[in-house]
């Protein structure tokens, strides 16, 4: 992949991108209240008097949200701050009940870390994370329900968010997309955020600036709340182009907040947000400094599962998968979960070392299974064929009960009906014939029925052996074990 360049009328420009990702923390209760975080409840049903900022209500912090932020920090190799402080960010909005958001400003819970992007063809790039801080989500305003009113639902109000702030280390829309993809993969592996961008549990603010090669950083614009990876890429493209056009026209970029319109494919200024934004941060006097010790961090570290990069390395080094296959399988936690469950079952069923059957298993998952899922428009978690069922099918091939070709037919039926492989093989009589007596009998019949070809073969036309194999397979409906056929056929043809 070549460098991402925006060609202006006169000069070439490069783009510099930083992302602020708001990731909703997976926890039962909210950051500072005991109300549920569950999605999709009736309006204001998951609101405590604390979330509604009733007079005299006070915040108390949820331990799990702290643990999840620390786990996230550890997963990107970040420094964990044993001392951090909650501040109030003051502004007025209908869905911000307190008139301030409790956030972390000067002393965040997590410091600098690194996310390694997978850019394809084995290329990687490290993108720095500046910090991760914990903060409250706001409620939800609905502007289109009534001609005169905006409706406000506080169910999201107070849900814990991690704001993950990257360094301005990305230089193309692809890299920004790869960053979000990788970050989401990591968060989902460790279970700190479900990464669901459609439901808004992960959203990105995109900082974009452009410059001529070698020049210092240009003025940046922040595109707020972009809610899909594709939109992030598009937003960067159009915003960078907009900035280049302004600069080439001799204009200057105003540092401002913008909104991406995915229909018109443009960004536009959110002037309302700009006006008088002076957040007057100060330490929240209702809370004390957040402090914990090394033992807490160690326990969080121990609770981390194998991370995607570690898993990928193990798949290559220990299981002998190709780098490409390993990369594809670990990209989604669900895929690697499926693969690993299948491999374990297969290895125990066929009494073979995992490394011996791993490549076959990987090929099957990425080929047959992904293909079928794709065609059916299903995700791997919706697969009608479970990992255990897949392992059963592959084990039947391993022990010679069915051939690889028959396996494909069996899988098709499994995928349609959800039935077990063995039942299908039994039902349809698809068991491979390996009985030498039976096969010998058929070979004899085939040879007897084709004297002309036999003569030509014996006259030196070796290739005709394929013809005889084909005839035998045809006579057995494809069930004859090809190995056995080959072994018996040659001596008989040779006479």
């Amino acid at each position, binding site marked *: 992949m070549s460098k991402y360049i925006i060609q202006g009328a006169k000069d070439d420009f490069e783009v510099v991108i930083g992302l602020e990702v708001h990731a909703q923390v997976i*926890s*039962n*209760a909210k950051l500072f*209240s*005991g*109300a*549920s975080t569950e999605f999709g409840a*009736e*309006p*204001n*049903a*998951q*609101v*405590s*008097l*604390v*979330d*509604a900022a009733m007079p005299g209500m006070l915040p*108390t*912090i*949820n*331990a*799990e*949200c*702290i643990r999840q932020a620390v786990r996230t920090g550890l997963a990107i190799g970040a420094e964990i701050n044993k001392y951090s*402080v909650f501040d109030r960010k003051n502004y*007025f909005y*209908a869905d911000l009940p307190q008139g301030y958001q409790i956030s972390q400003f000067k002393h965040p819970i997590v410091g600098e870390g690194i996310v390694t992007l997978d850019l394809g063809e084995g290329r990687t790039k490290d993108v720095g994370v500046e910090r991760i801080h914990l903060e409250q989500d706001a409620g939800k*305003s*609905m*502007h289109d*329900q*009534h*001609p*005169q*009113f*905006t*409706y*406000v*639902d*506080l169910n999201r109000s107070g849900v814990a968010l991690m704001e993950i702030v990257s360094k301005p280390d990305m230089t193309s829309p692809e890299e920004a997309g790869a960053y979000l993809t990788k970050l989401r993969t990591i968060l989902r592996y460790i279970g700190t955020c479900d990464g669901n961008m459609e439901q808004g549990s992960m959203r990105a603010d995109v900082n974009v600036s452009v410059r001529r090669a070698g020049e210092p950083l240009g003025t940046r614009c922040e595109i707020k709340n972009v809610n899909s990876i594709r939109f992030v890429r598009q937003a960067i493209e159009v915003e960078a182009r907009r900035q280049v056009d302004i600069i080439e026209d001799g204009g200057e970029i105003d540092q401002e907040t913008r909104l991406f319109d995915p229909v018109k494919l443009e960004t536009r200024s*959110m002037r*309302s947000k700009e006006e*008088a934004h*002076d957040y*007057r941060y100060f*330490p929240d*006097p209702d*809370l*004390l*400094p*957040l*402090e914990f010790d090394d033992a807490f961090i160690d326990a969080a570290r121990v609770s981390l599962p194998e991370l995607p990069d570690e898993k990928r390395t193990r798949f290559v080094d220990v299981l002998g998968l190709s780098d490409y296959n390993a990369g594809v399988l670990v990209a989604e936690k669900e895929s690697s979960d499926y693969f690993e469950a299948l491999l374990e079952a297969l290895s125990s069923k066929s009494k073979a070392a995992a490394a011996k059957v791993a490549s076959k298993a990987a090929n099957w998952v990425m080929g047959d299974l992904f293909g079928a899922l794709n065609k059916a428009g299903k995700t791997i978690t919706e697969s009608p064929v479970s990992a255990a069922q897949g392992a059963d099918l592959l084990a039947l091939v391993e022990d010679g009960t069915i051939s690889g070709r028959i396996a494909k037919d069996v899988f098709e039926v499994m995928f349609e009906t959800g039935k077990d492989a063995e039942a299908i093989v039994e039902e349809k009589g698809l068991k491979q014939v390996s009985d030498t007596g039976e096969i010998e009998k058929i070979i004899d019949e085939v040879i007897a029925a084709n004297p002309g070809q036999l003569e030509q073969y014996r006259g030196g036309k070796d290739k005709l052996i394929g013809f005889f194999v084909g005839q035998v397979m045809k006579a057995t409906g494809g069930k004859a074990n090809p190995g056995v056929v080959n072994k018996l056929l040659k001596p008989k043809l040779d006479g």
Partner: protein
Amino acid sequence: MSDIDKATVAKIARLARIKIEDDKLEPLAGELNNILGWVEQLSEVDTDNVEPMASVVNAKLRWRDDVVNDGDKAESVLKNAPKAEYSFFTVPKVIE
């Protein structure tokens, strides 16, 4: 240090979302200048190497267990609302 004029008062009032009639801006500027001028005697105090004190409580933050034990009281939450419809709070329409 402090020099609060009419425009500054208007700006602060805007940040604080408090309507202040035009004819009150000037007198308020005077009052605020008085108070802040008096407050400025703090600059006499040598505070080098002094940590700002945010709380007198010398303890770390206590943590709560991750248990859902609140919510499910939309009626209570909405009871004092000046205006509510279909279990939503309602405010004058916001045009984004």
